[in-house]
């Protein structure tokens, strides 16, 4: 009797305990790999199905904002994998690109779910492309949905496209079957090469929340319909994008923020000598100090760069003395680039270096008296003095002595 009870118990528990209430097999999921968020045109509003609300009955008088969301969906086992997509033909061949409309993110997603047989799954979301138009109006609405949803990973990338975000998702390289993966690899590897700071979505959100720090996102541009150019960094003021750097200025920013490894090269020429030197930064180190002098905040950013000569285009001999000269020239050049970037940011009042947060941490009293609010800080930031000093150390010169 006792024995049979034990057996019965074992059978029942092996049946029950191995089950899962939230079971969705892989092929029952519509894995969204990429999302592109644009503003929809006037005439597209009518295309919206009445899923979460009746037509023209969106509450809150918020009828102005209307998103067009393009999703790149992969349904495992249902998309053709393998080298079938031809080069440069766009991603329609290999993944499924679906357009949907909505007043908010979730509104659009609900509309999308209404059209799909599989359950939408955001756990594999790699990349979220936001058009410049949307980001200039503010991204906090988009963020709320993404932050609330437990499936979304904070390590996904959020990027800005100047014109049409949906075009980025359509870009498909000939060598990768899942286009979004290639796009996110482009960004991940750019981080490894030191071309891009590790500003993925989670970091972006942290910067957005912080007092005295303004956020940045990578900006991209589609090249030839099959790849991405990392086209600088979009910088924000509050949750609104206010400007964009050039790709070269990413290097300056990373230098000032001490983001290693170094990846960008700097081109310098020495006085009374022909030709130029290309110097690649290998390792960056920087010290940011803030001070209050006469009741005004000041910042000193000292950058130390370990570098190597990668190329030169003149006949002169390279030795320790010339190297010193090249270093000096590089210092000057770097300071110039950095100061320009700082000036650009100050004009827009976007403190992406987090100087405000440092002031807040170090001079709490000053912060409470004079600033106290994130918005007020951007005014102070506009006026403050920021001194950038660069110190290049060229360690080696490749395989050539000269």
């Amino acid at each position, binding site marked *: 009797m006792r024995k049979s009870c034990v057996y019965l118990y074992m059978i029942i528990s092996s049946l029950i305990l191995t089950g899962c209430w939230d079971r969705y097999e892989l092929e029952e999921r519509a894995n969204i790999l990429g999302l592109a968020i644009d503003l929809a045109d006037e005439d597209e509003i009518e295309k919206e199905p009445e899923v979460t609300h009746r037509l023209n009955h969106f509450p809150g008088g918020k009828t102005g904002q209307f998103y067009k969301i393009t999703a790149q969906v992969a349904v495992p086992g249902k998309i053709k994998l393998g080298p079938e997509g031809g080069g440069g033909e766009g991603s329609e061949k290999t993944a499924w690109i679906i357009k949907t409309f909505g007043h908010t993110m979730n509104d659009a997603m609900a509309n999308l779910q209404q059209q799909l047989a599989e359950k939408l799954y955001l756990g594999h979301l790699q990349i979220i492309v936001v058009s410049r138009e949307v980001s200039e109006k503010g991204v906090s609405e988009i963020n709320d949905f993404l*932050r609330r949803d437990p499936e979304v990973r*904070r*390590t996904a990338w959020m990027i800005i496209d100047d014109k049409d975000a949906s075009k980025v998702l359509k870009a498909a390289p000939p060598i990768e079957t899942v286009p979004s993966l290639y796009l996110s690899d482009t960004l991940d590897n750019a981080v490894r090469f030191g071309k891009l700071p590790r500003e993925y979505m989670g970091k972006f959100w*942290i910067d957005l929340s912080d007092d005295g720090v303004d956020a940045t996102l990578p900006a991209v541009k589609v090249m030839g319909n099959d790849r991405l150019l990392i086209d600088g960094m979009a910088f924000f003021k509050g949750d609104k994008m206010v400007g964009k750097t050039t790709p070269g200025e990413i290097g300056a920013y990373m230098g000032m923020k001490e983001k290693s490894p170094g990846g960008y090269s700097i081109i310098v020429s020495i006085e009374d000598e022909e030709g130029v030197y290309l110097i690649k930064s290998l390792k960056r180190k920087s010290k940011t100090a803030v001070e209050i002098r006469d009741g005004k905040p000041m910042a000193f950013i000292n950058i130390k760069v370990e570098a190597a000569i990668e190329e030169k285009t003149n006949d002169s001999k390279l030795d320790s003395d010339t190297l010193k000269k090249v270093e000096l020239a590089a210092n000057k050049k770097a300071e110039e680039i950095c100061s320009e970037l700082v000036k650009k940011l100050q004009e827009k009042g976007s403190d992406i270096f987090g100087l405000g947060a440092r002031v807040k941490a170090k001079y709490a009293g000053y912060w409470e008296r004079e600033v106290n609010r994130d918005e007020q800080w951007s005014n102070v930031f506009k006026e403050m003095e920021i001194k950038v000093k660069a110190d290049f150390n060229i360690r080696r010169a490749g395989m050539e002595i000269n």
Partner: protein
Amino acid sequence: MHKHREHITPIQLASIIISTMLGVSMLAFSKFVVDGSGSGSPLASLVGAIIAFIGLLAVVLLGKRFPKKTIIGYNETILGKPLGRFINVLIILFFAILMGLETRQFAEVVAGALLPNTPIQITISMMILLCAAASLQNVATFAYIHFFYMPLILLPITIVLISAFWDIETYHLFPIIGHNSSFKEFMSGGLVVTQAILNFFVISMVIPFMKDPKKCIKSGIFGFWIGSFFVVVIVIMSLGVFGEEEMKQMFWPTLVLGRMIQVPLEILARIDALLLISWIYGVFTTLLSYYFVFVRGIGELFRFRHDRIISLVGFPVTFIIAIFPQDIYQMYDFILQVTFYGIFLTVFYPVLLLVVAKIRNKGGVSV
């Protein structure tokens, strides 16, 4: 006193404290600390841990003084039967309510972040059933369970915390005493830590089962500070990575931390799964301790030897408590309130008890 063949070693006692302290609240408490004391949270947590430590000291000293009795027993000896019994009922009630609410918190995390379609009733009843089944065993097994799971709890959380180190922004951690925070705000954050770790109290039910109860002081302190170390480091790391403002916006900073972290060298793509598994071990050991206090406490209070029956009766009781809060906000309100009053019961009360025991000269061992 049925103290037969059940010998707990000092290391087991320490691991009981550690794995009990690191439990359900591991994911959420740091948010409430930061709500109170902002950038002063690391310091506040330390203060909170020290407050809890006072309670722990009292508990182990009492344990040394009454090496053959649990808190249920020496309560009656020190305070006399009526008052002692009244406090005993309070203690059992406190742990029953805490058990229910913490189970609910566990279920809310599971429903909110892991398994959105699984009804929380199922999650809750599964967890309580598991604890009920495990608490049927004797005290030695209870200690073994804790000893076995302790490394499985500590290791993944260590990996997450170490990997988080590279993402810290130092300006999140300063000024170290908090920004514009009054002493009251500072302490309100610190007390959350005390509230989160006051469950060290379970050892007062275990000490008499030790092979040598006199060793409880050393191992109790040892276990407590290892547990507190992790608690404080969790606060430092989550604050350092997220900063004050970001942490105020989420329910479970530690979980998000696990999701954001990339282990160096890309050994694992995602470690949040690892973190969650270890967290579930932590939840289990913590809830098991609560249930243990509940079952053993009632058994001893009413001189009722049939633990199985108490376990069975305890199931619907804790289930109803768990199901009681209407929503997640209310649940956290309840937890914070209940554990706040718990401080009096688990920290101040043992100190008081120790003083009374000295005055009335009860308990034989120490002079």
